[in-house]
C-alpha cells in the first residue's frame, strides 16, 4: 500500500513538473522540438517510478554527452591531482636532500681536522629512471678561517676593522692582484672525502670539498 502511495505521489509530481515546464516552452517553431524532448523526460520519470514499484532498477547509464562533460571534469581533477602529486614529490625530494645533508654534516664533523659548516647533496630527480633518488654528488663546505666564528662557544670573534682614511690629491696605491685561495689541506680533505664517499658507497670523485 505504501509503495502504491509513493508511486502515485511521484506521478503527481511528475505531471505538475511537466505542466510547469510546458509553460516555459517558447512559442513558435521551436515549441515542437522542445516538447518532444520534454516528453522523453516524462517517459523516463514514469518508467523510473514504475521500476521503483517493482523493485527494479530501470535507471540507465548516463547519456554519452553527459559522460563527456563528466570526463572533462574528471580530466581537470586528474590534472590538478597530478600537479599536487608532483609538487609533493618535489617537496619530498627537497626534504630528502636536507636530511641527507644533515647526515653528511654529522659524518663530516667526526673528522676534527676540517671544520665542515655546510653540505649540499645532489640527487637524481628523474622519476622515470631506475636511479631515482640516488646521490649524484656531495659538496662539503669548509670554513676558511675556523677561528673567525667559534661555533662551540657561540662567540663572534670577528676582527675589528681598521679605520679607512681617504686622502685627496694623492695617487691611489696599486695593489697587487690577490692570489686565488688555496683549497683545504690535501690530506685532511682526502680523508674527509674518503669517509663520506665510503659511507654512501660513492666514488671519491663524486664528493667535493670547497672553502666557503
Amino acid at each position, binding site marked *: 500500500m505504501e509503495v502504491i502511495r509513493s508511486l502515485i505521489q511521484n506521478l503527481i509530481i511528475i505531471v505538475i*513538473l511537466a505542466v510547469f515546464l510546458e509553460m516555459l516552452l517558447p512559442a513558435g517553431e521551436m515549441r515542437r522540438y522542445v516538447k518532444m524532448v520534454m516528453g*522523453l523526460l516524462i517517459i523516463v520519470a514514469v518508467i523510473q517510478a514504475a521500476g521503483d514499484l517493482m523493485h527494479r532498477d530501470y535507471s540507465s547509464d548516463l547519456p554519452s554527452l553527459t559522460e563527456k562533460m563528466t570526463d572533462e571534469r574528471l580530466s581537470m581533477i586528474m590534472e590538478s591531482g597530478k600537479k599536487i602529486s608532483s609538487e609533493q614529490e618535489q617537496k619530498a625530494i627537497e626534504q630528502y636532500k636536507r636530511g641527507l645533508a644533515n647526515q653528511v654534516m654529522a659524518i663530516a664533523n667526526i673528522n676534527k681536522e676540517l671544520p665542515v659548516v655546510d653540505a649540499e647533496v645532489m640527487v637524481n630527480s628523474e622519476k622515470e629512471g631506475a636511479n631515482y633518488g640516488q646521490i649524484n654528488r656531495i659538496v662539503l663546505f669548509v670554513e676558511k678561517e675556523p677561528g673567525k666564528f667559534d661555533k662551540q662557544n657561540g662567540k663572534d670573534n670577528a676582527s675589528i676593522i681598521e679605520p679607512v682614511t681617504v686622502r685627496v690629491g694623492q695617487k691611489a696605491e696599486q695593489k697587487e692582484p690577490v692570489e686565488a685561495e688555496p683549497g683545504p689541506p690535501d690530506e685532511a680533505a682526502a680523508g674527509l672525502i674518503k669517509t663520506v664517499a665510503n659511507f654512501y658507497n660513492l666514488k671519491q670523485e663524486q664528493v667535493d670539498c670547497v672553502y666557503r
Partner: protein
Amino acid sequence: MDIMQIVAIGLIATVLIVVVKSQRPELGVLLSLVAGIIIFLLVLGKIGSIMDVIMDLTARAEINMVYLGTILKIIGIAYIAEFGAQISRDAGESAVATKIEFAAKIMIMVLAVPMIVAVLQMLLKLVP
C-alpha cells in the same frame, strides 16, 4: 509593478521603432534588440525562483538532475534562437532567421540524443 515597466518599455520601443523605421530602418533593428535585452534583464532576477521550484519538483520526483539540466539548456537554446530569428525576420532577413532556427534545431537534437538513448535503453530493459 514590474509588468507596467516592462509594458512601458515595450510600447516606447515600439513607438520609437515605428517613427525611426521610415527614416532609418537599421536603427529600428537596433532599438528592437535593445528593448529585447532590457526586458530580458528585467525578468532575469525572477527566473531564479522558478528554477528553485523546478529543481525541488525534480528532486521530489527522483529524476536525475542531468535530465533537468538538458531540458533547461534546450529551453534556453529555443528562446535565444527565437529571439534572434524574430529580429532577423523584423529586419526583413527571413533567410537568416531560417538558418538560425535550423542551427537551434540541430543543437536541440544534439542535446536530446543522449536522452533518446537513455529512454530506448530503459524501454529495452522493460522487455522481458
